[in-house]
């Protein structure tokens, strides 16, 4: 069976503690910060934590490899650790893990990229003359906390625990984006990120409630209704629109986290955070949580055709929408942010077209080259004295040779240059889209072209053309120190080689396999199947390799176009001339931020002020009115007190008269 070996089970039990190591290191740093002693060791603690997590992750990755021929989709393993809280009438939510192929891949991606980023941060967090920036320990503590929460999210065995990881990751992104809290824009961006994520979580929570309500009748006693295993076992028993509603609500959560169409506004602003944060959180791990969740809920989404349709179209529109904006930005990190959003949209299209394994494969490869690009941008920023606007500098080839070479590899991978990892994974998504939804395929093809175009526009503007340096860069900007170059080279290796894990070697005619050798759906896909993923098998029909050539051509043409227009990093923006007002629209990011602010934020604040006024005047007024009536009544009667003795006697006499009359006619009771 899956974990036959005894050593395996011991390693497994050790694996239980996997997420706790980064948490431990974060706590350790916290204690250091509080106690004030040996503060320099902060990065060592977190690196150690990340390292242990990476090792255990790799061990589990190997453990979870499919035994035998790899086609059997054995169910995932769930391990209960401790009860958490009860949901009444016997149902209980606990801390438990759910391990299968998908978890293995995610573990590998998260832990490896996290390790690279932590090592890189050691260099990044030092300013020009080498001593640590203020808040150095706090940064590493938050990184540790983030790794813990991402691992909890990935390993979670039930929806509530997933929700826990979901929100904790949101918290860490809030803390890390707002790291330079003295900058008001950073604080605002952090708040925006957390709140937009919260909107997504609102839908996610409702999805969980709805799921529980529908699953409960089918659950046998002794099973917890919200555990993955139980939910997927009874997924088929739900009615069509029940599942659709649940999937839509869950997808709403995914949109928030993975920055898809309506809820993406926080991602570009999140670039206010330090670059390693962007690399780790906004490229490789957190934003992929949405994709992971939709992939994880494969059995649910499988029988929710409407939901899949929504996912596909949100993905397609998102891809091209983000690509257009990326083409018209000058801030290097924002271009990469929009590119991330576009690539994530690719993954959602793959999920929508019923190819979750390709989506995960693209997620796996994308993590490597996007992290590399962000780290590269980080080192450029580091060298340029925190300036990242492409108009400020150009021709850095001569000054930052290593960064330039690594960035080139990253750009090629992102652009889908043949034989690199990006090419293989993106192509499979195009393949899935071609089979299911032709208009979407056309959109994606066009987006691939635009991706190649804007990636190399950025590359040429930054590294080619005459050497110009911003004032802040100082006389001679130094290239990245070794502690930053090492992780980048490792990621570059990943960017190049990672793709081959998902490629099958199959000698055949050029039509059947690309360059006589390669075909899609290699070992990686079988690895990912090994779990509860419901996947439509892909047969390698003849002529399937044609698509490889088409996408390769699109990629190369895109690069060439970028070279022709931006080869010499011209100052005047060629695109502005050719696209005119369209370009301005893209540059201003479709004014979405302003629209959202006007449509949502201001009216709500106005409503708040109105309520406050109503509260002070209306409700409070009513209460005071009630309080005031006796006083007013008193004032009326006071007139009778006119001080003259006689009038008092008169009123007394009148009183007696009335009483007498009453006594006389009404009679004593």
């Amino acid at each position, binding site marked *: 069976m899956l974990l036959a070996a005894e050593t395996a089970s011991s390693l497994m039990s050790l694996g239980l503690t996997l997420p706790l190591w980064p948490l431990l290191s974060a706590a350790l740093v916290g204690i250091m910060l509080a106690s004030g002693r040996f503060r320099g060791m902060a990065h060592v603690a977190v690196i150690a934590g990340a390292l242990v997590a990476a090792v255990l992750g790799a061990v589990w990755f190997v453990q979870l490899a499919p035994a035998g021929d790899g086609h059997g989709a054995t169910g995932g393993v769930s391990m209960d650790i401790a009860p958490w809280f009860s949901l009444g009438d016997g149902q209980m939510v606990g801390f438990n893990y759910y391990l299968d192929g998908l978890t293995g891949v995610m573990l590998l991606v998260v832990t490896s990229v996290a390790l690279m980023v932590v090592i890189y941060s050691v260099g990044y967090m030092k300013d020009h003359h080498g001593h640590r920036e203020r808040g150095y320990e706090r940064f590493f503590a938050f990184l540790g906390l983030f790794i813990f929460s991402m691992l909890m999210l990935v390993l979670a065995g039930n929806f509530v625990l997933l929700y826990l990881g979901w929100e904790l990751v949101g918290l860490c992104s809030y803390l890390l984006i707002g790291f330079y809290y003295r900058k008001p824009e950073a604080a605002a961006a952090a708040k925006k990120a957390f709140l937009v994520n919260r909107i997504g979580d609102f839908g996610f929570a409702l999805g969980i409630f709805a799921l529980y309500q529908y699953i409960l009748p089918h659950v046998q006693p002794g099973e917890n209704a919200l555990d993955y295993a139980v939910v997927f076992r009874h997924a088929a028993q739900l009615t069509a629109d029940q599942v659709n509603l649940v999937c839509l609500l869950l997808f709403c959560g995914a949109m928030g986290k993975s920055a898809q169409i309506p809820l993406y506004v926080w991602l570009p602003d999140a670039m206010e955070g330090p670059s390693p944060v962007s690399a780790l959180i906004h490229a490789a791990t957190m934003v992929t949580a949405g994709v992971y969740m939709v992939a994880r809920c494969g059995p649910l989404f499988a029988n929710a055709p409407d939901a899949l349709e929504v996912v596909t179209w949100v993905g397609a529109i998102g891809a091209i929408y983000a690509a257009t904006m990326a083409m018209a930005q000058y801030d290097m990190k924002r271009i990469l942010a929009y590119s991330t959003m576009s690539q994530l949209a690719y993954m959602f299209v793959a999920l929508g077209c019923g190819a979750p394994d390709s989506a995960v494969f693209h997620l796996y490869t994308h993590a490597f080259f996007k992290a590399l690009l962000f780290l590269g941008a980080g080192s450029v920023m580091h060298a340029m004295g925190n300036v990242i606007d492409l108009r400020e500098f150009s021709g850095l080839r001569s000054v930052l040779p290593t960064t330039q070479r690594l960035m080139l590899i990253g750009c090629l991978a992102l652009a889908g240059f043949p034989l690199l990892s990006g090419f293989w994974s993106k192509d499979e998504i195009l393949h899935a889209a071609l089979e299911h939804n032709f208009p979407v395929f056309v959109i994606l093809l066009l987006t691939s072209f635009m991706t190649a175009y804007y990636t190399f526009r950025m590359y040429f503007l930054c590294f080619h053309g005459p050497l110009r340096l911003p004032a802040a860069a100082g006389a001679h900007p130094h290239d990245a120190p070794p502690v930053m170059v090492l992780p980048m080279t490792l990621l570059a290796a990943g960017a190049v080689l990672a793709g081959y894990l998902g490629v099958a070697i199959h000698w055949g005619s050029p039509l059947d396999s690309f360059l006589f050798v390669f075909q899609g759906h290699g070992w990686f896909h079988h690895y990912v199947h090994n779990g509860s993923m419901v996947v439509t098998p892909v047969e390698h029909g003849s002529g399937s390799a044609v698509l490889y050539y088409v996408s390769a051509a699109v990629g190369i043409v895109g690069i060439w176009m970028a070279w022709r227009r931006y080869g010499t990093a011209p100052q005047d923006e060629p695109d502005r001339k050719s696209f005119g007002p369209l370009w301005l629209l893209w540059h201003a990011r479709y004014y979405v931020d302003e629209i959202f602010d006007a449509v949502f934020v201001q009216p709500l604040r106005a409503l708040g002020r109105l309520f406050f006024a109503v509260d002070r005047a209306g409700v409070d007024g009513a209460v005071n009115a009630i309080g005031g009536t006796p006083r007013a009544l008193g004032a009326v009667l006071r007139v009778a007190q006119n001080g003259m003795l*006689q009038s008092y006697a*008169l009123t007394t*006499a*009148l009183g007696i*008269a*009335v009483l*007498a*009359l009453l006594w*006389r006619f009404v009679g004593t009771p």
Partner: protein
Amino acid sequence: MLLLTLLVVVGGIGLYMALPRGRTAPARGVLALLAVAAAAMLVAILINLPSGIVTPARPTMVALSVLALLAAVRVVTHSRPVYSALYFVLLVLANAGLLLLMQAEFLATGLVIIYAGAILVTYIFVIMLAQQTSGKAPYDTEAREPLLGCLAGFVLLAVLAGGIYGTAVPGELKRAGPGGPLAAEAIDVRPDLAPNAALLSDVNRLSEPGPGHGTTERLGTHLLTSYFLAMELAGVLLLAAMVGAIAIARRQLSGMEGAA
């Protein structure tokens, strides 16, 4: 019963008319007419009271009562204080007469001496003292809230009279004979009538108290035996009143210098 209320109403209106108003006092004729009408009404009432018995004192009592009421009306309505005081003396005398009828000789004489003699003299003395302008002072002609005052007073009177004379009994009261006590069965029909029934039947309480009932000697022994403490207290009260009056008077002198 209706007659009685009628009387009271007419009396009320009359008095209302009689009270001094902004303009000159009401024409004497109207006043006289009203007074006479009221008196006639009263006499009619008193006469046809259900009294099977006619005691010799009746006519004098009626006369004295009428006199007393008229005097009282004039005391209240007269615009010049001195005349009010004088009418009050007349009233006291009428009252004394009535008391005599009831064989309360000592009280009657005491009343005349103390009231008419002492108190009224003081009043007249003060009136003279406080008389500043010749004509009518504004505050004498102007009555305050006459309507409400009369209303209150006469409603009270109507009710008291009603209470005394007999309740407005919905059913007709059955009487044993003319003027006799209410038949027994009438009482048990309306148990709450019991006290008035007793009131009405004078017959069985005609027992004369015997001569010298109200004489000083009888009254004196009575006072000093069963009300000995009260007598002492009355003495103390009078002493206190005297001391008070002196205190006010003395302070009044010193106060004067200040106010003057």
